[in-house]
């Protein structure tokens, strides 16, 4: 198998009650690649991301992360890895949410060290310098003792990125990271993500930010109605879209 493939999802199906949200999705993400997933709301793009880190459970299909099966398809049903394996595989992925989901009762620094200390069992004095360096990287070291409620949305989202990075994931997942932000605050978050991409972090970004997809991503996937309609490099995708759905969507967005 190609050692450079970080994530391989195959034949992914997911239903909510009777509503088919994902209808046979296949995708691959290579090491250091930034994949942007775009599409209208209700197209299943967030669900796809949430299936990847098991916030949603697959009905059918397989998920491989760095060569290990998180879920394997057998007889048309997805079977998940046993608990310890699943835990290890999931820990390779960090997640950033639309609503930030910082822990409001903890300071910024406490948010960052919570999981490293209590999940990985690191000592506070080991992780604090790492956490402070991450906060410095996202430009918020001066806010380390503030509570999240005192920060702007853009600052909260940058803390959320730092918190996910504190667990040293190999892959970062972003679920519409700027959709809950005022327009003037999206820039600072996108800049942080751009820095991350420049450091060759493998990233999957569900987004409505076309400029970000065009400038930062190496691959763009366009989803509609639970299917991948079109995919390609940003140049192909934005410069010369093939499908009518894609053209209509891009016309509306740009």
């Amino acid at each position, binding site marked *: 198998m190609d050692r450079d493939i970080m994530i391989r999802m195959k034949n992914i199906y997911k239903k909510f009650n009777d509503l088919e949200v994902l209808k046979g999705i296949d995708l691959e993400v290579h090491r250091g690649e930034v994949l942007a997933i775009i599409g209208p709301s209700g197209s299943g793009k967030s669900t796809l991301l949430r299936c990847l880190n098991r916030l949603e459970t697959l009905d059918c299909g397989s998920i491989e992360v760095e060569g290990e099966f998180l879920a394997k398809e057998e007889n048309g049903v997805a079977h998940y890895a046993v608990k310890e394996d699943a835990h290890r595989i999931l820990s390779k992925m960090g997640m950033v949410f639309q609503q930030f*989901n910082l*822990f409001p009762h903890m300071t910024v620094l406490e948010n960052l060290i919570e999981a490293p200390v*209590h999940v990985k069992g690191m000592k506070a004095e080991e992780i604090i310098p790492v956490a402070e360096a991450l906060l410095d990287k996202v430009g918020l070291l001066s806010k380390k003792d503030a*509570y999240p409620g*005192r920060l702007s949305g853009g600052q909260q989202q940058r803390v959320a990125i730092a918190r996910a990075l504190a667990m040293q994931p190999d892959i970062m997942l972003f679920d519409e990271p700027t959709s809950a932000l005022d327009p003037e605050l999206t820039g600072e978050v996108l800049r942080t993500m751009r820095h991350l991409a420049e450091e060759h972090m493998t990233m999957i970004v569900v987004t409505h930010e076309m400029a970000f997809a065009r400038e930062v991503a190496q691959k763009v996937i366009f989803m509609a109605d639970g299917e991948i309609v079109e995919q390609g490099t940003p140049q192909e995708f934005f410069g010369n879209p093939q499908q009518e759905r894609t053209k209509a969507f891009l016309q509306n967005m740009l």
Partner: protein
Amino acid sequence: MEKLMGIILPMLEGSGITLQIFFVTLAMALPLGLLVALARLSKFRPIRFLMEVYIWLMRGTPLMLQLLFVYFALPMVGIRLPDIAAALLAFTLNYAAYFAEIFRSGIQSIERGQYEAAKTLGMSYVQTMRRIIIPQMLKRVLPPISNETINLVKDTSLIYILAMNDLLRVARTIVQREFDMMPFLVAALFYLAMTFVLTWIFKKLEAHYAKYDE
């Protein structure tokens, strides 16, 4: 003066019983209520059902009836508890049910995103509840918990039917003996003092939790 002391000293003794019931009930019913709330939210239907029945029984019958039941009915089936233990059992079971419902509503008011964030960071159920959900829940339930706690101070007076010399019963005994209404007034002041202290403690707790906004 001597007469006043003759009122106050026995009443102080009576308030000792009152305070004992109050503190022991609180110390047992709060943790028990939390466990019941978590069980009530369990994935396992039988456990959930059991907790619903328990809460229904405790909230659906008068506390006085529960006290009488523990005190008079249990001995008939061979369970004989010391007076104070019987009272504490009834109070604890009753208050745990009310606390459980308050804790449950608090837990359910925490956004799903908090669980999801904890999960994607690799935290287990126990870690998520202990470190993320319950601390935030406590802040939100302080006002109703404070309400119930103040109710408890006054409900302790129900034990007079079990012939235990709590504050109110002592007061009534003196009133009946001396035809002097003064002990009722003193009892009222005792209760007011206790609830004043409680109100102050809860105010401090709320101020402590106000260090973070949501």
